[in-house]
């Protein structure tokens, strides 16, 4: 038996190729359409979610935290988006909320800077910001503060969350804390703010010169602590104000 080897065979092959191409483009078009409609659905659902829960997101810290976690896990940044400020932000008003909180954080950091040398404890910051916002502002949490500080980063003002001995602190001056100062801060926090040379010598094995130099630098150069010259036991003690609570 002989197979046809004429031109008709080529034609047949061409024909089926074309059909396959058509079919495939048909299929991918359906997929794209499908995807578009899914995306539309998602956006509608999101808009709906946002408008329904807008108030809860703004006012309820637990809910806001859960929402932000959800955003993070699906890889969506609530503040970013195609339009300026982000459509998430626009839907939720969360962008403004976050910036507003940022401004309040800056306010507290700047106004307490002279007392604490630009280093403030997280709890204290949350307390003062809440006071500033008043009762109507809704509750805020550490997470809110941390994410707001992230939004401040483009400003280059050097706001930073640092962890000292397991305690979160916010630094608002571009000044690197050296290792000795970190140790001193940790000790101060345990001792209710008060530090003396002997503590550093006894507990950290420092020489007296090293302890004195570190403390005097914090006092005179950096303004990170206050001096108490009436200390009954040592005559001279140093107080780290960022480890204390203080109403203004």
């Amino acid at each position, binding site marked *: 038996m002989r197979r046809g080897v004429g031109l008709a065979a080529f034609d047949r092959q061409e024909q089926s190729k074309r059909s396959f191409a058509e079919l495939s483009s048909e299929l991918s078009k359906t997929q794209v359409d499908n995807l578009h409609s899914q995306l539309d659905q998602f956006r509608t659902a999101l808009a709906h979610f946002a408008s329904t829960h807008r108030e809860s997101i703004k006012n309820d810290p637990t809910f806001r935290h859960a929402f932000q976690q959800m955003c993070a896990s699906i890889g969506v940044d609530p503040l970013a988006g195609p339009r300026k400020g982000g459509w998430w932000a626009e839907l939720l008003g969360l962008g403004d909320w976050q910036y507003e909180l940022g401004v309040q954080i800056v306010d507290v950091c700047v106004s307490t800077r002279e007392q604490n040398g630009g280093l403030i404890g997280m709890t204290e910051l949350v307390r003062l910001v809440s006071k500033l916002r008043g009762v109507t502002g809704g509750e805020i949490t550490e997470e809110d503060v941390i994410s707001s500080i992230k939004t401040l980063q483009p400003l280059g003002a050097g706001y930073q969350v640092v962890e000292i001995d397991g305690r979160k602190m916010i630094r608002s001056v571009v000044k690197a804390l050296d290792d000795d100062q970190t140790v001193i801060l940790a000790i101060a926090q345990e001792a209710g703010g008060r530090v003396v040379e002997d503590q550093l010598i006894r507990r950290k094995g420092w020489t007296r010169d090293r302890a004195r130099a570190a403390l005097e630098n914090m006092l005179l150069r950096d303004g990170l602590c*206050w001096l108490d*010259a*009436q*200390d009954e036991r040592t005559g001279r003690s140093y107080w780290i104000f960022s480890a204390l609570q*203080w109403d203004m």
Partner: protein
Amino acid sequence: MIVVEKRGFVLPSIHSAPPFFTEQPNPTTHATATAQWIKLILTYARHRKLFTLRVEDAETAGSDWEEILRNERINRKILAPHLSNILEAMVQQNLAVYEPPKQARSVLVFWRLQEEWAEVLYDWVTSTGQLNTIMTFYDITDPPLESLLTNIPLSLLRKAIGILGKTNRSQIIAIADGEGVRFLSRSK
């Protein structure tokens, strides 16, 4: 922490911090501490209607200012040279004047601005219907019915009268046993 003292004055939490009673060597910290001291002195003076603050009050037990110049609970007190510097800062900021003048041991504290005192005085005179009456200073500092001006120091009273004089609302008049003053209604 806020501590309410017996006379109902609310001491700020910084008053419980031992270093508050030491003069701070860092200039920035020093400025903050001085500002806090001045604020405390003015609010306390206003609360207790105190007018005179002396450097000696830092050392004298039982002075009117003891409640703020000392903190027995933490065993701290402000030292005289420190207080003296605070008084100087107050004078510089026009929140006090040395009284008597030409010394630096004692000040008259302006917990109201002198201009405010002038208005308080004028309001009192008006509301008690004593416009155009000749009054002695004593009538003002010790009226039968206690007023905001009761016990106001003479030097402050004179300043207030002087300020009203600039807008023709007061006149100092010589009377038999010294000086008197007459307040006039605001022209125009």
